């Protein structure tokens, strides 16, 4: 039954148990987390009890027979890293989709975390041109932040746009349950922008088995660590869609009879996600890993286990929403947050940035109150009416995701709107900034 092939490899041909996602067999000398090939499919050891070894089959167990061949690899999943990765697309196993070989050093994926005392505090602003992000929720290198969006929002488009404008040395796309159309879209956009040589992709599409997705972020982050640590590069990792990744986690844990937690997610969801997101880092030598992720919501519900745990881990979230008043998708200023923005705004950007940002959001909140009043049939005051008019234009000129301007122009635009609809004392920013930047349009 057992025969030794190459060094470290052990081969077995008798399965003891089969479920939809796992197989078990009697085997000896197997290491935890070790990789195996079961009937040609990639698998990983998830449980060992005496000589009974349970393997998770990434491609699913359909059609696997009890006499299937099982080859243990003697090592955990690996990726070959090297400059050769640039400009290429890989499947979940780190094999080039278009064939061929990769030259590089073999690394185990899912490696250890960075010692917190070896990190540097992030401080480099990433302008994207989108005011809903730069003005209200500025991004910083080494940050991890997801888009919270319903499935019908154009999150992948926004993400591709942000990636191209972010001036990263490498963009690593981790596609999990990506539709084939979106995969081709990403390739196309990067190609048209002449950026293909800066891209590395690890792709699991909807046509691939869902459990394979579990390998994708670790592959992408192993590649990211190579470029950030060894080449001191600024690496941007795009993770889309982390809700589909979490679904794969729940498939496996349910099939291993683990007690599910909220929303049938595994009890370890927080740790599982944190392990990935915490790979975002700024190194003292200039290298960094920034992560922009997508967490799709169902009906805008952020209390669901996936967005909820994500929010507790990431450094803020960018909430996409359709504004029916202007008919465009905006970055919602209330529910979005960049926790690292205070490290750059007013420091790397103009001094009045924090004040302008807060004032505009406050006025937008006044408009929301006025709107509620209106909907409840109460009379509007003159101020209410002005804030409503302001909100519409603010949404159109600054919050909409199709805005693409410099940060200073965002501030100027904000002053134009303030001046059109309000008096300085209604806006409530520091007098020194009013003196310097206020635009008096109100006649």
């Amino acid at each position, binding site marked *: 039954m057992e025969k030794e092939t190459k060094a470290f490899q052990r081969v077995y041909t008798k399965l003891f148990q089969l479920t939809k996602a796992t197989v078990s067999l009697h085997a000896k000398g197997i290491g935890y987390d070790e990789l195996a090939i079961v009937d040609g499919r990639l698998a990983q050891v998830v449980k060992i009890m005496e000589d009974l070894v349970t393997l998770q089959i990434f491609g699913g167990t359909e059609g696997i027979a009890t006499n299937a061949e099982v080859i243990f690899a003697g090592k955990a999943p690996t990726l070959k890293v090297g400059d050769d990765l640039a400009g290429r697309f890989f499947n979940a196993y780190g094999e080039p989709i278009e064939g061929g070989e990769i030259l590089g050093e073999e690394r185990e994926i899912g490696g250890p975390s960075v010692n917190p005392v070896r990190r540097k505090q992030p401080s480099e602003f990433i302008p994207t041109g989108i005011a809903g992000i730069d003005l209200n929720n500025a991004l910083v290198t080494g940050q991890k932040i997801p888009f919270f969006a319903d499935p019908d929002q154009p999150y992948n488009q926004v993400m591709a746009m942000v990636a191209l404008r972010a001036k990263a040395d490498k963009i690593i796309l981790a596609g999990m349950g990506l539709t084939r159309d979106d995969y081709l879209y990403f390739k196309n956009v990067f190609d048209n922008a002449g950026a293909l040589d800066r891209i590395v992709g690890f792709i699991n599409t909807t046509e691939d088995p869902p459990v394979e997705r579990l390998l994708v972020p670790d592959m992408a982050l192993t590649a990211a660590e190579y470029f950030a640590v060894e080449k001191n590069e600024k690496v941007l990792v795009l993770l889309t869609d982390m809700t589909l990744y979490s679904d794969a986690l729940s498939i496996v844990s349910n099939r291993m009879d683990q007690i599910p937690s909220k929303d049938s997610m595994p009890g370890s969801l*927080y740790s599982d996600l944190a392990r990935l997101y915490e790979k975002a880092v700024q190194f003292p030598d200039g290298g960094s890993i920034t992560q922009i992720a997508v967490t799709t919501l169902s009906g805008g519900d952020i209390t669901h286990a996936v967005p909820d745990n994500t929010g507790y881990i990431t450094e803020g979230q960018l909430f996409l929403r359709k504004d029916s008043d202007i008919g465009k998708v905006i970055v919602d200023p209330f529910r979005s947050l960049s926790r690292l923005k205070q490290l750059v705004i007013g420091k790397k950007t103009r001094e009045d940035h924090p004040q302008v940002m807060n004032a505009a959001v406050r006025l937008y909140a006044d408009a929301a109150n006025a709107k509620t009043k209106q909907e409840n049939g109460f009379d509007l005051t003159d101020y209410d009416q002005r804030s409503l008019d302001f909100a519409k234009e603010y949404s159109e000129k600054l919050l909409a995701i199709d805005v693409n301007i410099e940060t200073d122009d965002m501030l100027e635009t904000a002053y134009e709107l303030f001046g059109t609809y309000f008096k300085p004392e209604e806006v409530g920013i520091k007098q020194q900034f009013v003196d310097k930047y206020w635009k008096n349009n109100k006649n």
Partner: protein
Amino acid sequence: MNTIGNVTGIIANLVIVETEGTTAQNEICYIKHGDTRLMAEVIKVVGNKSYIQVFESTRGVKVGTEVEFMGHMLEVTLGPGILSKNFDGLQNDLHKMEGVFLKRGQYTHPLEMEQKFDFKALAKKDDKVVAGSWLGEVKENWIPHKIMVPFVFKGEYTVKSIKKDGEYTPKETIAVLTDKEGNDHEVTMTQKWPVKVPIKAYKDKPRPFKILETGIRVMDTMNPIAEGGTGFIPGPFGSGKTVLQHNLSKNAEADLVIIAACGERANEVVEIFTEFPELDDPRSGRKLMERTTIIANTSNMPVAAREASVYTAMTIAEYYRAMGLKILLLADSTSRWAQALREMSNRMEELPGPDGFPMDLSAIIANFYARAGYVYLPNDESGSITFIGTVSPAGGNLKEPVTESTKKVARCFYALSQDRADSKRYPAIDPIESYSKYLEYPEIEEYLNKTIDEHWTANVFKAKDILLRGKESYEQINILGDDGVPVEYHVRYWKSELIDFAILQQDAFDAVDAASSLDRQNYMLQKSLEVADMDFKFESFEDVGPYFKRVINALKQMNFSEYESDEFKQNEKEFRNILKEQETASKEEEMTAEEKAS
């Protein structure tokens, strides 16, 4: 002889080990994986099988691998040199670790055993001493670090000899103690203690009777925490738990601050590493880092060590409390610790309690909070640990096991509200939901009224009442419309807004406003109540808001200026002038009414 066993099963970081010899609950053991030794702790024993939780990744571990049991529980090393260090959850000195990445199986010594400390004897030959008695002291940063009789010593001892004042390393014997049977025991500057066992080297633990000044108005004024008291901060993500804890660690009036960063973001710890060495301690004038110790077990570090991290932090706090110091212990977030317990309990296929948490979650939390407190030491000095933990409830819903279990034991409840955070009313502590049980203690009430102001507690309850009545008026206005209610409702609402803006809200990022002394808090509370006591006459509801906004602005400007400075006084004058407008207005009105009558 240490017990040796062999691995028979592995599920993630739960490993099952078969042994011939004895093993104990919570005993530490090491898995010999290749050249590395992976540390683990026994969490269950059935027959000859020990279930161990491994503090590292178990990748590559095989059945049959040898495991050595060490005969002791998880311990920390206590001695001079702990302060301003950055440890992981198992008290490894993070700075001594090699490389950018945390290598598994790498354990580093928490102290500097070669460093010389300037020792001064406090005990002398023939003194009778017990566990925790002060034998001498060394300077650690600016703190007189006491060298104590080890806590494991039982009964009374006689000092046989003690070193002369001078420079010694932590390894050297500084005293010899003789027990009742006449056996001699050598004592150094360091000792070990198992983290899960409370250090009880104190004579008495009275009910807390003093306030720990935090500088945060919404806490000190509205719901103060006692020195040696307990509190917790539940709140959804983004509501301000971490900013509040960082602010407490910067401004609270404590000798030492110990922070357990338990299962949260690494960048938040980096923020402390980066900023604290630069920031001044408002009281000692030294750098904040000199009074701060961080136990960092961030969310990507091994899950099992998360649980250890809070116990490690508590034990270090107890050690310094025994020196007669005032310790503030913070843990962010205790929910991550509870989740680590849940992950393990699920792997062991234990019968789950609510939401899959272990059945004994409440008891574990209660035991932990009970280790805080104000104590009298054997020499009648006092020391304290004030403990504040954050809780991260799933979906922001407070009806979940960790919040509910904590609520049973923590005496202060600082509920962060999503609404307040959304409208940037920071710190987002809900003034109506939150409470401090200490306000009900007669000894605390007496303390407050004696040290701050004889009317203090009466004023606090008055302010609370105004907030409540303001909220009721606001609800009425929303139902009936601005002009559907008497103008008086608007006034009541705006009086509560004034308390909200002038007392509750505080800018954590403003150099002046970030911390407010009790004296200053008293002053501002009196100003706010003065307005609340006034009768206002407004023609229309539309005049109320704009007027109060001006009063609020003046009070806020006072908050932003140095207490009792010229700027402060100038702003107060402005505040007076705005109030006068109303006084004159109502007087004029009275006069016209009188004129009409005559």
